[in-house]
């Protein structure tokens, strides 16, 4: 891999963000709205439950982590869609840029944009709703990494779907996190779900992360096995997503889809 083409892909996204505040605003505003909404819900639940259970870490922490994962996915997908929207595929792929360099550029872009979202969420959640986010220490970083990898996986997979089925299929991409969230057990223990949903959840790394985080919050020993399982599933799925994208790209080159994409993008 050559670093300069990767830098080119990232620089293009920086130019787009620099020149357009409307691209930056949603990165912060959506997650901020989520934190404010769930922040007040948790405050309310704390006052009415009477159980003494603090809902802030479980619910607000869950929202923050799930939004982080979703933002990572959106970061990859949106950077990819910028090339769809501007009908830039022919210019891109008729250059020496390789598919791995292109994906690397999308991932780096996503890291930058989602860090912005994460920062906004942390400021609000800790400053306004007193979420002790860093009290979990190093295990938190490990679990965040699993969510990061899964977000990248979803972004690459979603981009592959759009490349394969055309620009209109972006509407399949946006609801993907919402579709997965009930299975990811963000707000409730896995045992709450019926058996078939638990079976699906075992294929989703976030389910291991949220189960592990709840264990930590309840003061149980560090759930090393959950972290290992979650990491393994995340890595395998990332490799599968990269393989899927590579297959879709080769199919697009073989069938002429890539060459025709500019024309279809205008339709």
């Amino acid at each position: 891999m050559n670093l300069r083409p990767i830098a080119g892909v990232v620089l293009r996204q920086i130019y787009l963000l620099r020149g357009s505040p409307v691209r930056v605003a949603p990165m912060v505003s959506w997650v901020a709205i989520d934190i404010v909404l769930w922040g007040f819900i948790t405050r309310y639940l704390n006052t009415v439950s009477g159980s003494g259970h603090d809902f802030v870490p479980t619910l607000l922490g869950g929202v923050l982590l799930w939004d982080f994962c979703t933002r990572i996915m959106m970061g990859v997908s949106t950077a990819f869609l910028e090339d769809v929207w501007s009908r830039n595929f022919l210019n891109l792929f008729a250059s020496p840029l390789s598919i791995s360099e292109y994906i690397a550029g999308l991932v780096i872009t996503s890291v930058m944009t989602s860090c912005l979202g994460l920062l906004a969420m942390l400021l609000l959640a800790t400053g306004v709703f007193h979420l002790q986010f860093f009290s979990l220490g190093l295990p938190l970083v490990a679990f965040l990494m699993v969510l990061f990898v899964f977000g990248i996986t979803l972004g690459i997979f979603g981009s592959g779907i759009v490349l394969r089925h055309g620009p209109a299929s972006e509407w399949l991409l946006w609801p993907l996190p919402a579709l997965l969230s009930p299975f990811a057990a963000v707000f409730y223990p896995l045992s709450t779900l019926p058996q078939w949903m638990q079976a699906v959840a075992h294929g989703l790394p976030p389910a291991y992360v949220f189960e592990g985080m709840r264990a930590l919050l309840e003061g149980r020993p560090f759930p090393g096995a959950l972290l290992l399982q979650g990491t393994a599933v995340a890595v395998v799925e990332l490799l599968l997503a990269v393989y899927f994208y590579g297959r879709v790209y080769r199919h697009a080159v073989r069938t002429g889809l890539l060459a025709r994409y500019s024309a279809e993008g205008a339709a």
Partner: protein
Amino acid sequence: MPALTTNSDGKNTGSPADVPALRVVNLRKRYANITAVDDVSFTVSRGEIVGLLGPNGAGKTTTINMILGVLEPSGGRVAIDEIDIARNRALALKRANFAAVYAQLPGNLTVSENLRFFGLLYSIPGLRARVEELLEEFDLVRLRHTKCGLLSSGEQTRAALAKALLNKPQLLLLDEPTASLDPSAAQIIRERIKSLASRDRCGILWTSHNMYEVEAVCDRVLFLSHGKVLLEGNPRTLPGEHGSASLEDLFIRVAREPLSHDVGAEL
């Protein structure tokens, strides 16, 4: 047509002066029941401008897409500067570039942002100076901070040509580069491209439906119909050799001729 002889890197070891900018050998593209390009072979020498002519659907853009590596051939080979594109895509494409009416630069970046972005994709050394040079050469200095989507057709063509020359290509592919220009702007662009071939020894493959332009610019033309090369020769003498009054008359005869194996001989 000689077969490609390349070493293990897909690079011919012959002297640079003898090496054609482009060698296409027995190129074929078949989609299900349609043969879009059928056993096409030709070369483009350094400093030569070759016109690729033919009616709509003749296979010109399909041929160009295969040369650019965005469409996989069903058979045959393409070598840019004797580097086989199937074996060493990135290295081959570093020596080529293109401009086409259907592949405009992203309209949401300014002229200089686009040139820097593509310059990184092509790993251009001394990029800043090269961008300044091209802005001067194509009279784009005053438009450097203008978004490409806001440029007039002529300005967009100049910006696309500046991008196409970023890497000082050995091979330049131009798909109807003057299609949307007024006669005056088209003439200026033609002169610039002609000087490129003579000054920089760049091989140019040019498609156009403007036979006056082809006669004025091209050293040699290839008539393509139903995916086959039917005729090849000097655009100024070819019509007379085949009993036509002008290149346009010859084009019309080729376009209306039903395809048969000896159609070239009949003409």
